[in-house]
């Protein structure tokens, strides 16, 4: 738990340090204000609507997750599965693909946006899978975890939910 808190603190510090070094550049007509990230206004706990939650069999009142400062999330639990919606303001599908040890990283096009379904190398037996797609200057990620092995595919579930929410999310910038 301490390590997770340390991660958040370190990432917050890095984000501050990076933003401090990336101020607006001076042009001939004065400084151009940086284009704000449309993802900034997205609350991870409002990505799924009550209707989405009902369809997926999830209980309302998601629990905010802040282990990683650049990827806040919202965790929902249901009888058969858990779903966590994240917004990542530091990475895109393209930059995520460069991580060396994915067990699965299948790219696809989601309504014109780069998207991918992925399984971490350390979670191949845990029935957990994420679908991510570009949004704003970062990406949205939907993680689905099946509570019991065998019955349904976590990747299929995460993809279904990602497709459902995609039209409502900010366009890629």
């Amino acid at each position, binding site marked *: 738990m301490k*390590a*997770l808190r340390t*991660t958040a603190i*370190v*990432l917050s510090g*890095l984000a501050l340090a990076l933003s401090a070094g990336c101020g607006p550049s001076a042009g001939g007509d004065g400084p151009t204000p940086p284009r704000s990230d449309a993802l900034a206004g997205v609350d991870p706990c409002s990505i799924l609507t009550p209707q989405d939650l009902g369809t997926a069999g999830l209980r309302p009142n998601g*629990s905010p*997750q802040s*282990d*990683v400062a650049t*990827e806040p*999330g919202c*965790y929902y*639990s249901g009888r058969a599965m*858990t779903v*966590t919606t994240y917004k990542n303001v530091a*990475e895109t599908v393209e*930059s*995520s693909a*460069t*991580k060396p040890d994915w067990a699965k990283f299948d790219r696809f096009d989601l309504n014109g946006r780069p998207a991918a379904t992925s399984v*971490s*190398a*350390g*979670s*191949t*037996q*845990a*029935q*957990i899978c*994420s679908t991510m797609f570009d949004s704003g200057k970062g990406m949205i990620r939907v*993680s689905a*975890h099946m*509570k*019991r*092995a065998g019955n349904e595919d976590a990747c299929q579930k995460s993809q279904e939910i990602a497709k459902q929410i995609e039209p409502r999310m900010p366009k890629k910038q």
Partner: protein
Amino acid sequence: MTQPNEDGFQRTASDMHNIRQDNDRIQQNIADGQLRMQPEAADQAARAYEDAADRVHLLIERSDHLDRISGLGDYPSGRQLTEKFRLKAKNGRTGAADLLMEYATELQRRADLVREAKRAYLTQEEHLSQDFNTMQKGME
């Protein structure tokens, strides 16, 4: 070189083996008619095991999240830190999320077994009641 979490992972894997064996034993006892549980106690116990399993499911999500950290910058300290977090999430053979999934599965199995013990109790009650009625009719 020994990885920092190797001992912890091995110990957990060994604990998992013991939990699985306990569940096997409980299952055998129910099958042999040696274990029945009073319904109210069984329901409470099953709920407690399911609540515990739910907490483990949240840990699975958080562990997977940790495993997905792709980098804390290209500075040597950032790379070292990333590797340190990765080692906390997996040990090269089995990831923490995978071990936690085994644990959640055994907790759910225990909840299912407790409910099975409740059904065994109710079935026995029913048989006793039928036997009693038959005996009473015989005495009339």
